[in-house]
């Protein structure tokens, strides 16, 4: 094998190894629970309707990019304006929504729904997380 051929083979091996290392990691690191996001609640406890089913939760904006989400979770002692650290998965759907602030209703509103598995109030002043509170969804 020529020198350049060996070099190419070595590069391929290096690339394959680096890909392997990238994919390695504990299962807990890969679980969606750990992909937590900071959200600021923009509403009190409310509900939306998806496919004729009532979905309870809170409206929130993601701190990093101000994108709006509906956090699907049970009522807690959370209030409008609080920042929360939430973990879970999200998707987009058409929902019927009612905004308490503007008293407006929309039947086919494109909504980002975040299904919350874990939530905790985030204290920015102390820059620390309070003990996480598991949410038992119905």
């Amino acid at each position, binding site marked *: 094998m020529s020198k350049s051929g060996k070099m190419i083979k070595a590069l391929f091996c290096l690339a394959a190894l680096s890909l392997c290392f990238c994919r390695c990691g504990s299962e807990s690191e890969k679980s969606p629970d750990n992909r937590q996001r900071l959200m600021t609640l923009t509403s009190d406890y409310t509900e939306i309707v998806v496919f004729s089913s009532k979905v309870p939760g809170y409206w929130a904006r993601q701190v990093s990019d101000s994108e709006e989400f509906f956090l699907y979770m049970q009522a807690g002692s959370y209030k409008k304006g609080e920042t929360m650290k939430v973990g879970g998965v999200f998707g987009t759907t058409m929902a019927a929504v009612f905004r308490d602030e*503007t*008293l407006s*209703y929309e039947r086919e509103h494109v909504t980002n729904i975040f299904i919350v598995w874990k939530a905790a109030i985030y204290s920015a002043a102390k820059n620390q997380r309070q003990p996480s509170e598991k949410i038992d969804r119905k």
Partner: protein
Amino acid sequence: MNRGNISGLIFALFVLISPLINCQTFIEESASVQDYSVKIVTDAITVHTHSGKNLDGYVAEYEEGLKNFRIFLAFEIQKYKKGDWLVVTAKSSDDYIRMSINLRVESNIPVYYALRARNYWAVTSIR
């Protein structure tokens, strides 16, 4: 004519016809969706329509050409109250309900689906 040509022809036909189909759908939708300034005259109720659907919503009144019309507005979330004035974008349907309001004779009330609704005072900023 071989199979490739036939499928090509079908595809071309589809490409040519699809805008016409979309236009037709758009015309139908724009004909049935309209804005109404309404007053809600009942509390939130659940009704059984002529076609057999169970719908939640309100009976509302609007005025057109010095005449009062009553319609049933189907809402998925019922947060408005009797007496509220709304500007509603609603889609008409062929369905209706039969009911009497304020001891009037029972009549057919057409069913409309509310797509968007806002408080009238918020829209006109008069409050």
